[in-house]
């Protein structure tokens, strides 16, 4: 269905929370260098799916193939090792440390002093300053603790750190929800740039305009099932909204 070489294939993914079936049978494919917009109503199951791919949640059943191999991450660090970067809807920042420490969380740069690895604060600060400047986000000082930052400033840190690590697949769960106009524009550009490097991108958003601006393909989830999977150029915002709310039944491009 897509013209991209497949990167991640989801096959019949299900997830139950107790008696609640959050995902009923999700199957679709994300290609290399492809930007897929994952759309759906509140509670449709988008974040659940992202967490399953990112290793934060175990699916009840189903299988995934990543980069040609069977894949099931048992923890976020496994998924990261495989090349999957994730920006979560509920931010994942440690508000008790500063911007730099958050940006490099888990991947600190070190240098050798007397044979021991010592944090290289200067090198890290330089990287962060560059990344945030190019994203258009103004932050009083990179040494402020994140608890003193505004909602949008926080999201900017989380959104921009993923670019730095490359990887093969990027999952973005409502990454622009708190971003300003200019920051969103640059964010969308960045996504395209990332995809052009051959990295697959999954982006979740509720703003049609954003989806149509950046995505190659749109996948709609409704109440835990795929209610639509179409190339962006073959559909229109109104048609997609109808898929999301269910006014036309599983229309415009069959599921799977």
């Amino acid at each position: 269905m897509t013209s991209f070489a497949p990167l991640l294939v989801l096959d019949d993914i299900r997830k139950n929370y107790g008696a609640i079936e959050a995902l009923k049978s999700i199957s679709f494919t994300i290609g290399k260098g492809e930007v897929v917009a994952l759309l759906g109503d509140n509670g449709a199951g988008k974040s659940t799916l992202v967490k399953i791919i990112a290793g934060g949640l175990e699916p009840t059943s189903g299988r995934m193939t990543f980069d040609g191999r069977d894949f099931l991450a048992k923890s976020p660090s496994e998924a990261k090792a495989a090349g999957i970067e994730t920006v979560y809807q509920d931010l994942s920042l440690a508000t008790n440390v500063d911007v730099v420490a958050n940006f490099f969380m888990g991947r600190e740069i070190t240098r050798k002093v007397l044979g021991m690895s010592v944090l290289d604060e200067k090198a890290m600060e330089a990287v962060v300053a560059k990344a945030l400047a190019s994203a258009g986000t103004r932050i009083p000082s990179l040494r402020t603790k994140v608890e003193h930052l505004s909602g949008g400033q926080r999201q900017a840190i989380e959104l921009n750190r993923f670019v730095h690590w490359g990887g093969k697949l990027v999952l973005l769960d409502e990454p622009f929800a708190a971003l300003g106009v200019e920051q969103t524009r640059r964010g969308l550009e960045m996504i395209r740039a990332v995809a052009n490097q051959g990295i697959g991108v999954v982006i979740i958003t509720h703003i049609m305009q954003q989806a149509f601006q950046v995505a190659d393909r749109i996948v709609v989830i409704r109440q835990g099932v795929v209610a639509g999977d179409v190339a962006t150029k073959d559909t229109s915002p109104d048609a997609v909204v109808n898929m999301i709310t269910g006014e036309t039944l599983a229309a415009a491009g069959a599921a799977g």
Partner: protein
Amino acid sequence: MNPNTRRALEFVLDNLVWFMLLFVLLVFSIFVPNYFQPGIFANIIEASSVLGVMSIGLALVIIAGHMDLSVESVAALSAMAVGIVFCSAGIGMGVQLTPDWLGVPVSLLIALAVGSAIGAFNGLLIVKLKMNAFIVTLASYIWVRGVVLALSGGRSAQDLAPAIRWFGVQRLLGLPLTAWIAILCFVVFSLIMAKSRFGRHLIIIGGNQNAAFRAGIKVDRILITSFVLAGAIAALAGWLLAIRTSGATANLGMGLLFNAFAAVVIGGVSLKGGVGALPGVYAGVLLLSAINTAINLMGLPATSTQVIHGLLVLAAVLLDTLKLSIRQKLA
């Protein structure tokens, strides 16, 4: 407010506990008879070595967002283990190694093995089984003390091998080597916390464990390590305790836990995790030790010392808390 005043004030606030220590020493020197003499200051530093070392381990797990109430009992157990093997009187077996000095590494090894094992036990239950650290280590506090009792049968060991005891007798610049060991520990662990990835990750985990997990930090491994460290460091404290008392009794070290917590909090470590640095903790330890010494010298009725001790500690913690509100006023 002009920037210079602000900077000066911030400096005082950042190092408040050191200023408190100075202030308290000054007040006691003026009002408590016999307080002002070098020997007393040496005593304060010496008496704080056991507590100080123990506080380091406690501070580590608290910064990581958890807690370890078992450190006191762990110290007692390791002291008893060392005492039983290397004491020549009481229940001591009086093991003799040749050369003599071999007793030092061997006894240290015994102590650290005991402490690490209990730390690992705590850590596994807390991290792998997701039990609450408070309750797990409270239970350890009980059962480890129980082991001390069972091991010793309630009896004591005395006359520690002179090669080990040497650390408590030999002095350098007026302080016994035990005190220097404590100071060294503070320096090393302060550097680890401030400069290493391990320290950075510990602080991040204390701030937001879930974020650290999602960022791919091996949270479980680091947390278990920190509990093992807390156990091992407590065991080192126990080793120092055994040296200090030249042996071990079944109730050795009782009450240290309260003081360790107080020191850690006065030193600026937040019990909610994620906030704190070790140099402040050392100042907190010295502060408590200064208070203790003053109480010993003041000649109060025996039944009232406990009230006074409790309230003085509370006052110290209170002062430290005021820091926060002053800082907000500064804004």
